[in-house]
């Protein structure tokens, strides 16, 4: 569990941070996911792949949060911070990470593409990723290829992906598919 935390905490937090738009929220979601995993293991539940499992927990919690926010009405405050973190979060943002190479690459991808890519980098097979995310292995293949194509186009200079903004200039978060 400790080794998993050491290896998987950073990628999962990056994903949660980018999807929620807030580092604090991201940290809480990841903490909850690891705590839930711990409880599941203690209770003797069968967890096929802990990485995919925790990613799914984070994703589920994100969707719950989005729904709760939308029921309350008004702009989704925590989602409005997605993307250019430094502008929106000031001192709370970890300086320097918003513009690093990995962030620039991942910013090009949709949430689903990023999930598939993250799990593939961690060495999961298509079948495992598909089972964890509840999609087909063919979708995994397509999402992975699409993600790589986007990054390839961007590095060739053909496509500069910028965060989408609404009429007020606020950044529109990536939809969770």
């Amino acid at each position, binding site marked *: 569990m400790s080794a998993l935390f050491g290896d998987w905490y950073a*990628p999962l937090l990056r994903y949660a941070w980018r999807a929620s738009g807030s580092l604090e929220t991201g940290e809480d979601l990841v903490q909850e996911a690891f705590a839930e995993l711990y409880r599941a293991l203690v209770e003797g539940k069968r967890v096929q792949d802990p990485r995919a499992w925790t990613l799914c927990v984070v994703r589920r919690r994100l969707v719950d949060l989005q729904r709760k926010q939308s029921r309350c009405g008004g702009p989704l405050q925590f989602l409005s911070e997605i993307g250019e973190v430094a502008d929106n979060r000031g001192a709370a943002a970890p300086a320097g990470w918003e513009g690093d190479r990995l962030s620039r690459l991942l910013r090009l991808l949709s949430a689903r593409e990023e999930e598939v890519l993250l799990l593939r980098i961690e060495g999961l097979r298509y079948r495992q990723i598909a089972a964890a995310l509840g999609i087909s292995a063919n979708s995994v293949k397509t999402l992975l290829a699409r993600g790589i*194509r986007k990054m390839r186009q961007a590095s060739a200079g053909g496509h500069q992906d910028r965060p989408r903004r609404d009429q007020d200039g606020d950044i529109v978060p990536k939809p969770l598919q």
Partner: protein
Amino acid sequence: MFQSHSSDESLIAWLDGETPFYRRALVRSHLAVCWKCRLRLSRIEEQILDVTRAVKEDTFPGAQRTVSARLRFLEQASFPGTPAGRARPAWGRRLGWVAACLVLIAGGLWVSRRPAAAPVPVAGQLMRQAERAEAALMQGAVQQEFRVLARQLEPREISIESRLEVWSDPGQDKFASRLSRSGGALCHALWRPSSDRSFVYNPARHDAVVRLRREEAHIRWPDLLLREGLTLEALEASLMTWLENRPWRPVTLSSGLALAAAGEDESLQVETARSAAGDQFVRLSAWKRSGAVAVGFILEVEPRTSLPRLQRIRYESTSRTLELWIIPEPVQAPRPAVYEPPPAVRAAWPPPLPLHPEPPESRIPPAPPAVVDAALAEIEIHYALHRIGACLGEAVEVVRQPGGGLEVRGVVVDAPRKQQVLAALAGTAAVVDIKSVEEAVGSLGHNTLRVSRARPASARPRKDTLAPLYDYFSRDEAALDRFAGNALSRGQDLIFEAQALRRLAGAFLSRGEPSSTRARRLLEVMMYDHLRDLQAKLEDAWQSIKPPLAAASGPGFVPAAETGYSTARTAAEEAEEIFRLSRLLNERLEALFESGDRPARDLTRDVLNAFLTLQHALSAASARALTAEAARD
């Protein structure tokens, strides 16, 4: 013939090993002919490399946040009732921060107070600890098991896996060892029933068990390896020589490193690393150099027990990079030691051609000051390409120009490979026109390639007709996929070797032997190399492919060489016949895994028969090559 282009999805799935087995051969054969798809494939690979590099270099979210998160998690794990997230008591959070700060301060103090020259004595100390830890396990009679992996990383990837079993009773001076291929074929064994008798079985040298004569001088690993032109087979042979000449004691991995370092603690390097499973270990390494050859002895040690978990020997020269991995494994099923050899051990396969007793270069007469012989000039070019493996399936050809000159032209995979080919051809008389794939595609117009858009005949899964093989793999589709991929790629490797052999024979032997002694010798060396590699690869393929095919062929079936095999008379005819039989084997393998109506049982039988037929042809060619060598010596 062109198939339709592969999509990015197909290429990525192919790279990831996720293509179904019946599509794999199609993608591969398409890539073999389509530069555009190869270029796309290399760009995809570059992008994947870029992302993985970015992930590796990533330092997000920093040590402070990670430590604090870990503390929070441990706190939650210790008190499961504590709610997750930020709703926990403020004191817990403060305590977490205090603890994190203390950890960071302690870490900072440790780093700042660490003496600058510490690594050298630490490395020596660690190695001696590893030696002591290993020696402590070797009290009394022991049985050991090791996984041995001989790998060629450059110029192209090949790997041979074996298992080494050792029984040793130092108290009674008894010893036995067995080195066998992953398929079970025995390739080396030692028996020492008493202090005055020891026996060896080494099919590369003798067909049966013989008395062991040990070398007079003490054999050291570095002495065996520090030479130019070492091949994968020679690396394995050096392991056997080492086994035959080391003390009759259990195998200790740290002793190899100790010999390499030989009391020079300053040549030892130490570093900590993490395995793929996340376990930390200590890596000790010592390097020896001689001219352009460097040999590294790398030992990975478990930090808690100081026991070695892997010894890796890495050989680097201008033309080859090889590695030998020796991985200790727990003894699965203890077996009683057999220190007496059996009355006779017959080789399951004809012994492979022996290695050249010395590097071939030393046996080749020097080149005349001015090369006037056109055949010699051409053979020199072929030899330069042969040494870097460019004769095996690479799109590089030697062309005789109308004016009498020689041109080497072709397309190689990337710029580094192009540089390697250019460097190899630097001293020859060839006009060189080599392009990387990227350059070649760039120089073509968009309409230069006539690409047929007609789809190939649809390949469909042969689950119905492959039922006996499915049964063999307990209906595990992934296992069958892996088997099919393995069989097809081995078949293709055989074709490349046979093609190179046939090309040489066709170009230089069909018109009679070259007149110059150097040209003849160079030609013999190249053909000998290809024959030996063909034999080794065929044996390896047989060991790994035969069991499932034999099971699928049904009980009572005994493979036999086919009658259509013609006994060739000259070396050129022999090469032609070997190529024909390699192609036949390849076609039958493809027929087995692609669509067709014949039942799998017939197809597997055909494949096994083709194997044996090729083996007969190779045995005959080897015998001729050995006779020629003996006559010359």
